[in-house]
């Protein structure tokens, strides 16, 4: 690991000030579960670490109107097991518990989870010379290499990486908002705009500016607590990243869908909302024909690579199962 300076911030303002002189070379340290791993692998090379573990951002508070504000330093295990999250947003609890291991969830923070970097092998192992995300302009080794775990939606010539978070997939389905603060003030970014598609700048995972700090995630009031399901498909039963995951949330009136939300994980550079499939379900009876039509629509336009065509079929089937399970709940 390369040398860095370490300082602990005791306020949000102090953290932002500490990062301001060298915003691109400074990293905020929260749980460290991804950052330290990448620093050990020489993928991340910060010269300054600002430890934000003691910042007063570890609260979950109710918002007027029934929403919820989850502080950026709330640990994944605490967010998952918070009573209000479990009862109002069980989809988020399920997604959080599907990720990583109990130890890692005790460390990982809400803000840090959003900033996880891709698990593309060619990005993660610095001995591969070509990776546009790690080394802009160097090429993409995954496009012609082993790309079984890579994207089927929204990829570019420059990058076919996927975003690894489960939590972010549920947050996308639940229309969460990310609150960030930087030297020029506070911004609120809708989840759908928080992560980016790779395009020509795959080195940028998100629209967070250098030096900006995530302070909270806010959830709007939810009508989906009675009918939601997070389904994660992976190579082993637990403790692995998603090949495909589905966050499905339904607002039901009897057998009829009032509104649907569907987001996919493991298939794109960002949590992948499938609005067209959502709209097809709205106002329809949730029967097998409606589910099949929505699942088919959701994977339309998928562009598989040499090794990951199975993801198209898998996503379609997983959407079907997640919708069926969500619809059958009460």
């Amino acid at each position, binding site marked *: *690991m*390369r*040398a*860095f*300076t*370490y300082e*602990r911030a005791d306020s949000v303002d102090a953290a932002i000030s500490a990062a301001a002189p060298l915003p691109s070379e400074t990293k905020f*340290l929260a*749980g*460290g*579960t991804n950052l*330290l*791993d990448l*620093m*050990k*692998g*020489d993928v991340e090379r910060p010269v300054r*670490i600002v*430890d934000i*573990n003691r910042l007063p951002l570890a609260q979950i508070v109710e918002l007027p109107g029934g929403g919820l504000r989850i502080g950026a330093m709330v640990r994944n*295990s605490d967010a*998952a*097991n918070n*009573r209000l999250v*479990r*009862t109002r947003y*069980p989809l988020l*609890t*399920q997604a959080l*518990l*599907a990720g*990583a*291991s*109990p*130890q*890692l969830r*005790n*460390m990982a923070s809400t803000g840090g989870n959003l900033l996880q970097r891709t698990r593309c092998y060619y990005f993660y192992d*610095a001995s591969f010379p070509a990776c546009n995300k790690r080394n802009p302009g160097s090429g993409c080794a995954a496009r012609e290499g082993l790309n079984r775990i890579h994207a089927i939606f929204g990829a570019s010539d420059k990058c076919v990486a996927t975003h690894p978070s489960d939590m972010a997939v549920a947050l996308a389905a639940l229309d969460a908002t990310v609150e960030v603060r930087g030297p020029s003030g506070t911004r609120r970014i809708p989840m759908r705009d928080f992560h980016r598609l790779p395009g020509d700048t795959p080195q940028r995972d998100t629209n967070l500016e250098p030096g900006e700090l995530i302070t909270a995630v806010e959830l709007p009031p939810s009508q989906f*607590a009675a009918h939601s399901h997070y389904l*994660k498909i992976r190579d082993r*039963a*637990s*403790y692995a990243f998603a090949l495909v995951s589905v966050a499905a949330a339904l607002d039901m009136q009897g057998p009829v869908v009032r509104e649907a939300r569907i987001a996919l994980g493991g298939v794109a550079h960002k949590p992948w909302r499938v609005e067209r499939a959502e709209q097809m379900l709205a106002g329809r009876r949730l029967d097998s024909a409606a589910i099949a039509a929505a699942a088919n629509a959701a994977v339309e336009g998928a562009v598989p690579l040499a090794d990951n065509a199975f993801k198209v079929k898998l996503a379609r089937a997983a959407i079907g199962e997640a919708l069926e399970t969500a619809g059958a709940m009460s």
Partner: protein
Amino acid sequence: MAMAEKRNGPDKLSGIGRARRRFLTEAGALAGGAAVAPYVHGADPPQARAPATSPGAPATSGAAPAVTHTRLIVNGRSHELDLDPRVTLLDALRENLRLTGTKKGCDRGQCGACTVLVNGRRINSCLSLAAAHDGDEVTTIEGLGTPAAMHPMQKAFVSLDGYQCGYCTPGQICSAVALLSEAEAGAASAVTRDVRAGGPARLNPEEIRERMSGNICRCGAYVNIVAAITSVAPKGRT
């Protein structure tokens, strides 16, 4: 504590263990320049690198790193440490405090061998900077029990043979102890049928396997590990 040592004859094996550790210490010292933190892994310039077979590279890359003063309360004892900021909690425990019960497996958060309890919660000590734990209370396997006065979970692993080589065992046991307190507090898991319901969690084998999924055992002692944890879990909750 090392279970394999107890079963196979503590004197003989622990002697070998000491010799091996002494060798590693000397190998680290020979790599040179390791004044503050002899075991910081990484990507320092080639001239500063330790041999590939050594457990780590010295903490010198260009400018001398600043030292962070860190106070750790480990197994009830307070320690004041001056550390290179790169030192992980795992390396501080093993190399600075010589508490080698906590094991380094993958050193990348994938195996769970380094699991310790920090303020009562299980974490991977390999992915945590020691400096970030200033003032924290750490419990390692040495703090759970001793060969003469074992923790109930240690006893269960011994009596139900919840290990083979023993390398992952300290992490497994720390993890299992935390699992029981999490379940008691009502924590849900990925296999919990309905996360909306509260109350203490049931600990059937499926739940135990999921809740222990962060601890890999290359010997494959999982069946007996589940049995050991089941035997310590509250009766009527399994």
